[in-house]
């Protein structure tokens, strides 16, 4: 099925998502154009693409966020469309608008939809009008302290204070005690001011033991909107998702149906077009509230792809090409269970400090029910400027228990050397009782941190065998140096010095 309008797509992104988008383009016979910063000349997305253009310096603001430069490259390369991926410019209304002005297809929603959902207060109002339940709290931006105090008195503690323009946990404060209200308010506003240049905030009822559950939606320009069921994203660390799964272990068919209908209503309320995600917060009694809409592809979209059997990137491109959705709500079903683990380059034992560096070796998991979406390769140096995510490991199996077993097997096979990764930590998550039993909420990692950071066991011989292997490695290295210095050479004093230098540095 050839596209009518889209023959070449510029991918305004990097890392695994750029490669993932190019894979779907290649399958659709669409040409791909990569853009790259100074730090990314050797990145896989540059190598994978049909064309590649340099767009600026390493810091994102000077490259991947440079709207005009990207549009210039789109025109130069005669790309009909731009896919923004996630992050960077994906939820930037100005970018979507500039594309429209320049006659380039933006593979994503209209600037109006992005703006309508981008501002949290506007989004809340729209949802209330559309009949979608929202967390009790303010419907207007709060700009003064008095106002905030009144509202908190009204909805009652605990509350969450959030930056109106925010995202990613910046400018957020949880208030549990009366005495913390004023200091938290000030801290949130000052953080919001410095992060987003806007100190207006809003206040919401804080949900205890919350589940983060989101619904995937797809909408075409002919008014067809469907949802592709939920994703459970409650395994988080500092508001960063770590593990996601679908179906949610706490979901019931009845609640799923209701939430799905609300998700579709939420998308329709902003005339949404493309792929998007409605995030809900849910308590232990399955009461749920609209949290926000992400007007882009999510990192965790592959679990939905596997369980529903739909390639979300292909659907995004088809919708942008002006086609109608090829399925209706009643055609979509969930089959089996999928889990995603995000592999980060980080030192989990050292406060999860990011760990960029050069990949010396990588063995990726394979076999039935495994998908591994990454972008690093042996010899590649992960730059210090961008996200620490190396890859996403997705597994599928008939049941949740089998999927967990498969994920454990896949993590066991996954070996990355050169940088520290979260693989061991993720394996511990798969073993944690609360996770295995499917009764966890967003406090899971925090509550289980000690268990999750403890070492896995090896048998009594491991250490001695490690010493033996190291002995052999070192011994053969020394022997190799000795061979390099030929008998004819070693007679001279200068060569012994040379030998000494080489032995001292031992880098062959």
């Amino acid at each position: 099925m050839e596209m009518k309008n889209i023959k070449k797509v510029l991918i305004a992104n990097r890392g695994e998502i750029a490669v993932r988008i190019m894979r779907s383009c290649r399958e659709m016979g669409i040409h791909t154009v990569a853009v790259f910063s100074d730090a990314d000349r050797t990145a896989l997305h540059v190598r994978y693409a049909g064309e590649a253009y340099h767009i600026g310096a390493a810091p994102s603001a000077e490259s991947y966020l440079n709207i005009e430069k990207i549009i210039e490259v789109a025109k130069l390369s005669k790309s009909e469309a731009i896919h923004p991926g996630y992050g960077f410019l994906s939820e930037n209304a100005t970018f979507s608008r500039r594309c429209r002005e320049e006659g380039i297809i933006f593979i994503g929603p209209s600037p109006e939809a992005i703006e309508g959902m981008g501002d949290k207060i506007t989004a809340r109002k729209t949802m209330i009008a559309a009949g979608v339940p929202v967390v009790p709290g303010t419907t207007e931006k709060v700009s003064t302290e008095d106002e905030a105090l009144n509202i908190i008195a009204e909805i009652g503690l605990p509350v969450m204070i959030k930056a109106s323009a925010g995202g990613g946990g910046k400018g957020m404060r949880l208030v549990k005690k009366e005495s913390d209200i004023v200091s938290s308010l000030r801290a949130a506003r000052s953080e919001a001011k410095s992060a987003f240049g806007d100190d207006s905030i809003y206040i919401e009822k804080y949900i205890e033991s919350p589940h983060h559950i989101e619904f995937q939606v797809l909408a075409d320009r002919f008014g067809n909107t469907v949802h592709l069921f939920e994703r459970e994203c409650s395994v988080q660390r500092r508001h960063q998702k770590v593990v996601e799964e679908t179906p949610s272990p706490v979901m019931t068919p009845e609640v799923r149906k209701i939430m799905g209908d609300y998700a579709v209503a939420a998308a329709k309320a902003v005339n949404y077009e493309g792929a998007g995600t409605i995030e809900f917060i849910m308590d232990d009694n399955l009461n749920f509230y609209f949290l926000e809409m992400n007007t882009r592809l999510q990192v965790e979209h592959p679990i939905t792809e596997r369980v529903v059997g739909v390639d979300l990137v292909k659907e995004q491109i088809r919708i942008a090409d002006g086609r109608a959705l090829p399925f209706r709500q009643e055609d979509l079903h969930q089959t089996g269970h999928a889990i995603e683990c995000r592999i980060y380059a980080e030192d989990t034992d050292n406060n999860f400090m990011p760990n960029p560096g050069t990949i010396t070796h990588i063995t990726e998991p394979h076999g039935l029910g495994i998908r591994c979406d990454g972008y690093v390769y042996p010899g590649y140096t992960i730059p210090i400027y961008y996200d620490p995510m190396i890859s996403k490991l997705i597994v599928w199996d008939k049941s949740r228990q089998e999927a967990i077993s498969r994920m454990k097997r896949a993590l066991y096979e996954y070996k990355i050397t050169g940088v520290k990764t979260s693989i061991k930590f993720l394996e511990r998550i798969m073993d944690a009782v609360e996770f295995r039993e499917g009764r966890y909420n967003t406090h899971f990692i925090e509550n289980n941190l000690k268990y999750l950071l403890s070492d896995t066991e090896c048998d009594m011989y491991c250490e001695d065998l490690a010493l033996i292997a190291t002995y052999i490695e070192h011994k053969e290295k020394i022997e190799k140096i000795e061979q390099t210095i030929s008998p004819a050479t070693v007679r001279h004093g200068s060569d012994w010095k040379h030998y000494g230098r080489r032995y001292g540095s031992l880098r062959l």
Partner: protein
Amino acid sequence: MELELKVNDRTAKIRELKREGNILTVAVDDKIFEVDLVKVGRRDYSVLYKGKSYNIGVIEGREPKHYSVNTFYFGYDIEVVDAETRYIESREQAGHHHAGSEVRSPMPGKVVKVLVKPGDAVEAGQTVVIVSAMKMESEFKAPKSGVVSEVPVREGDTVDGNQVMVVVD
């Protein structure tokens, strides 16, 4: 050849006694191991011992004669102890060396703030430099109280892993 290897607090003497093909007889201190050991790929060893199959990755560390060794999920930092190492250690114990008073970057990153200059008095735990890597900023603190003697980095510099950023005397 005998080597002394250090792992955690243990220092072990390793010596090859016999080798026939892959079959290796090795003494680790006073314990004798007969293992079937073969190198597979560039950094991996396959070891069979008492029927069990072990995969051991031996990777050169960032410093010479240091190895990062993995068996399954268990990782060891192993160091070769030789004359040079002993010399450095003895110097360190005698107080001739900076070790312990240096602030090093644990990972590559970009120096976003240097808060001290040579000559400044600092207290243990005081933040002296801030490094940004992968969209996260990390603060690095003085390991002891004293006076800053060297600051070999400047704001905006990119640093490698294990690079000295501040020295406190």
